[in-house]
């Protein structure tokens, strides 16, 4: 009986320990995709999301994992299709422009 109770308590402690020991060190693309649906700050909200998570992780000794192009591949595939290709390229060309905006 005592052994059973001890086992039960141990299982509970392990579960609580696991749930507390999961500080976000690297943001998985899966999490990012989930976040993406909730962000509403503009075309580069996803990029800003990474900066935000970096701030959450500021206590880590090593610098947190920087964002990589692979993190954005899934959303690129979703957003850019043969129908939206021209429009998406124009947006990027415009973002890269340094000319004075018209008007």
């Amino acid at each position: 009986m005592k052994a059973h109770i001890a086992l039960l308590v141990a299982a509970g402690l392990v579960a609580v320990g696991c749930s507390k020991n999961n500080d976000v060190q690297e943001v998985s693309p899966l999490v990012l995709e989930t976040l993406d649906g909730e962000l509403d700050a503009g075309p580069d909200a996803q990029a800003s999301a990474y900066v935000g998570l970096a701030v959450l992780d500021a206590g880590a000794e090593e610098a947190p994992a920087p964002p990589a192009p692979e993190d954005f591949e899934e959303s690129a595939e979703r957003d850019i299709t043969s129908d939206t290709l021209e429009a998406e390229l124009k947006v990027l060309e415009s973002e890269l422009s340094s000319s004075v905006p018209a008007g």
Partner: protein
Amino acid sequence: MKRTFHIVLFFATLVALASHSTAQERRVPDSASMVRDYSQSDPVISHFAHQVAAGNKVVVRGFNLPGDAMIRIDGIDVAPEIREPSTVVFQVPPSVQGGPIFLRSPSLDRPLYVGEFTPRSDTWQAETNALRRRRWRVAERAWRQRKPNLGRSRAQRETARGIREDEMRRNRAERRRNSIAGYRARWQTNVLRAPEARAELALHSRRMARLWRMLRLAESLGRDNMVIRVDVAMARERQRHRGRMAALRTRIATR
């Protein structure tokens, strides 16, 4: 009695494990709300027209730029003519011959470093035009060499793209680890920790991922002009990123 207790113990363990996975799932909305707040307020500088003659206008491009932004250039405060979330335009005072540009706002904890302003040289326009033409020629030549290796028909090229993208999905985690290892090898920890450098890396990563997707699509559709435009945009983005990171590294090292 003993059997009943074993059943209870079994279900208790299941509940404990379930609470563990629920705690992990809960983190997503919690992080999302914090990230959303941060992303709404955090401005990111993309680039600016740094070679402009005194008296002319400078364009600063970025995201989430504050609506009450003020510019300080070489120690002189200037009110911008245009303040938009993605664009700030201001006029360089005639007395300024170069120096650092900062974007200031009461909503910011500290001035946001834009970059170093250098007066435009006499040959600037000619150099810019030559660079533009050179980039186009290089992209055109590269596409001419690449094109015969892709399938002859559009269906063949699209099939090849599908296979390639499936492969990319499969090895994404490994490629991501390699990219991050590359960043860590290249940039010091204090650079990788700085919010503005991380913002720049995120911006560049996102743009490059989108440009690569555009390139694969344009190639499979056989749209020559678009392939070249994407290639030119990639070259511009790489150059912009190199310049921005170099400027940020210098600024982070000296503060």
